[in-house]
C-alpha cells in the first residue's frame, strides 16, 4: 500500500464522518430552531427549559423518541413499513457527497478538497439520488395501508414528478454559463458575480421548487396535517417517525447547500477573490467553510420564515403553479440564457 492511497482513503473517511455529522447535528438543531423561531413569530417563548435557552431540547426529544413504544399496526405491510423511514433518510445523506463545503484544506503537505466526491456529473448526481427520496414517502403511504397515508403517498409522487422538471430546468441556465456540471467549477466561476444576480429567474424557480421537493410549507401536501391528519407518517411512531423528520431536515440542508453552491457563490465571500482565500492558507479554507455554513443557515432560516408566513397551497393550485408558471419560466430562462450567451 502506498502512502497516497492510505492518505486518500483516510481523508475521505474523515470527510464522510464529519460531513454527515454536520448534516445530522444541524437536523437536530433545526428541530429546535423551527420551534423557537416559530415561537418568536407568534409572540411565544417556545421550548427554553432544557439546557441553556433550550439548546439541549433535541437531545431530550431524541431520548423521548427512543423510549417511546414502537407501534407497528396490524394492518400494515411489515417489510416496507419498516424500510420506508430508512429509504427517506438515506438518499438525503447520499447527496451530501458532491456538495463542496469550502476551499481545499492543506493537511500533511497534501491538498484535501472539502468535498467527498467531486464528480463530473455533480449536480446530476444530486438530482438522481434526490429523486429517490420520494420513495420513502410513497412506500410509507402505501405500506401503512390506510386512507390518509395513502393519499399522502399519492400526492407526494405527483408533486415530486411535477416539480423535478422545473428544478432540473432552472439550473440549466447556470450550466450553460459554466459549461460544466462539476460543483467546484460552478463555485470557481462565481468568484466575481454570484449566479443569483445573473440568473435571477433560475434562482427564483429553483428556490420555489426546493420547497416543493423537500415537502415544506407552503407545499407540504404529502403531510398537510389539517387535511390528512399527518399524511404519510400518520401510522408511524417512535424512532421511525423521527427518521422521517431527520430525512426532511437533512434534505433541507442539502438543498440549502445546493442553493448556496449554485446561486450564492458557494464558499465565496463578496469582494474576496479566490487568490485571497488561497493566500490565507488553511485559515482561508476555514473562513470559506464558515461562509458556506452561514449561507446554508441563512437559507434554513428562510425555510422556517416562509413556513410561518405563507399558507398552504391547495393541491390543484400546486399543480397549476408547477406546470403553468414554473415550468414555462424555467424554459424561458434557458432560452434567454442561450440568447444572451451566443457564441461570438
Amino acid at each position: 500500500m502506498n502512502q497516497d492511497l492510505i492518505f486518500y482513503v483516510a481523508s475521505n473517511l474523515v470527510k464522510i464522518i464529519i460531513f454527515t455529522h454536520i448534516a445530522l447535528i444541524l437536523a437536530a438543531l433545526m428541530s429546535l430552531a423551527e420551534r423557537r423561531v416559530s415561537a418568536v413569530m407568534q409572540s411565544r417563548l417556545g421550548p427554553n427549559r432544557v439546557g441553556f435557552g433550550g439548546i439541549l431540547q433535541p437531545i431530550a426529544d431524541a431520548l423521548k423518541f427512543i423510549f417511546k413504544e414502537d407501534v407497528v399496526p396490524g394492518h400494515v405491510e411489515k417489510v416496507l413499513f419498516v424500510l420506508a423511514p430508512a429509504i427517506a433518510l438515506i438518499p438525503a445523506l447520499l447527496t451530501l457527497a458532491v456538495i463542496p463545503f469550502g476551499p481545499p484544506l492543506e493537511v500533511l503537505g497534501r491538498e484535501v478538497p472539502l468535498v467527498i466526491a467531486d464528480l463530473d456529473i455533480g449536480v446530476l448526481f444530486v438530482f438522481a439520488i434526490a429523486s429517490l427520496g420520494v420513495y420513502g414517502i410513497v412506500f410509507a403511504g402505501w405500506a401503512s395501508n390506510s386512507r390518509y397515508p395513502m393519499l399522502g403517498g399519492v400526492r407526494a409522487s405527483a408533486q415530486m414528478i411535477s416539480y423535478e422538471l422545473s428544478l432540473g430546468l432552472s439550473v440549466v441556465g447556470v450550466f450553460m454559463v459554466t459549461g460544466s456540471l462539476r460543483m467546484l467549477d460552478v463555485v470557481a466561476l462565481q468568484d466575481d458575480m454570484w449566479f443569483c444576480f445573473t440568473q435571477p429567474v433560475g434562482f427564483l424557480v429553483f428556490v420555489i421548487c426546493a420547497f416543493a421537493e423537500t415537502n415544506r410549507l407552503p407545499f407540504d401536501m404529502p403531510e398537510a396535517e389539517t387535511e390528512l391528519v399527518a399524511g404519510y407518517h400518520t401510522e408511524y411512531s417512535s424512532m421511525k417517525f423521527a427518521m422521517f423528520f431527520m430525512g426532511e431536515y437533512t434534505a433541507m440542508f442539502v438543498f440549502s447547500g445546493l442553493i448556496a453552491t449554485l446561486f450564492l457563490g458557494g464558499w465565496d465571500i463578496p469582494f474576496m477573490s479566490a487568490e485571497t482565500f488561497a493566500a490565507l492558507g488553511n485559515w482561508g479554507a476555514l473562513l470559506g467553510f464558515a461562509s458556506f455554513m452561514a449561507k446554508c443557515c441563512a437559507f434554513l432560516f428562510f425555510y422556517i420564515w416562509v413556513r410561518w408566513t405563507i399558507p398552504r397551497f391547495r393541491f390543484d393550485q400546486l399543480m397549476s403553479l408547477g406546470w403553468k408558471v414554473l415550468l414555462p419560466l424555467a424554459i424561458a430562462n434557458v432560452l434567454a440564457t442561450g440568447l444572451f450567451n451566443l457564441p461570438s
Partner: protein
Amino acid sequence: MGDALFYVFGALMVLFTFLTIRARNPVYSAIFMILSFASTAALFVMLDAFLLAAVEVLVYAGAIMVLFLFVIMLINLRAAEHDGLRVSPLVVLVALTFLLLLGRGIADLGPVPAGANELVGTPQLVAKTLFTRYVVPFEAVSILLLSAILGTVVLARRSGEA
C-alpha cells in the same frame, strides 16, 4: 476487483429482474424493478458511462417508476393483485428457444476486440456527439416527446370534460 463487481451486479440485475416479473404484488414488482435499474446504473459506471448512469437513475428509477407507482396506487391494484404468473408450456418453449438463439448469436459473434477502449462518457463528450452528429434525431425525439405529452393529456381527460 473490477471484474468481480461485474459478476456481482450482473447477478443482482438478473435476480431483481426475475423477482420483478415474479412478484405477485405490483408494488413489490416496482420495488424490485427500481433495484434492477440501480444495478444497471452500477454496470454503466463500470463501462465508464457516468452520465448515462446518472440519467438511468434519474429518469428510470426516479421518474418512470414513480409514475408506475402513482398509477398502481391510484387505481389501487390491491384488489387485482393476485393474478400471478400464467406459465404455459408454450411460453416456456418460446422463452427457451429465444434464449438459445440469442446465445448462439452471441457465440457466433466473430472476432471481438479483447480489451475495452478508452471511452469515458463525460457529459461534455456525450453532449458534443449528441448535438453535432445526432442533432436531427435529437430534434425528432423532442417532437416525439411533445406528441406523447399531447396524447397523454387527451387520454387522461375524463370523457365528458370539454
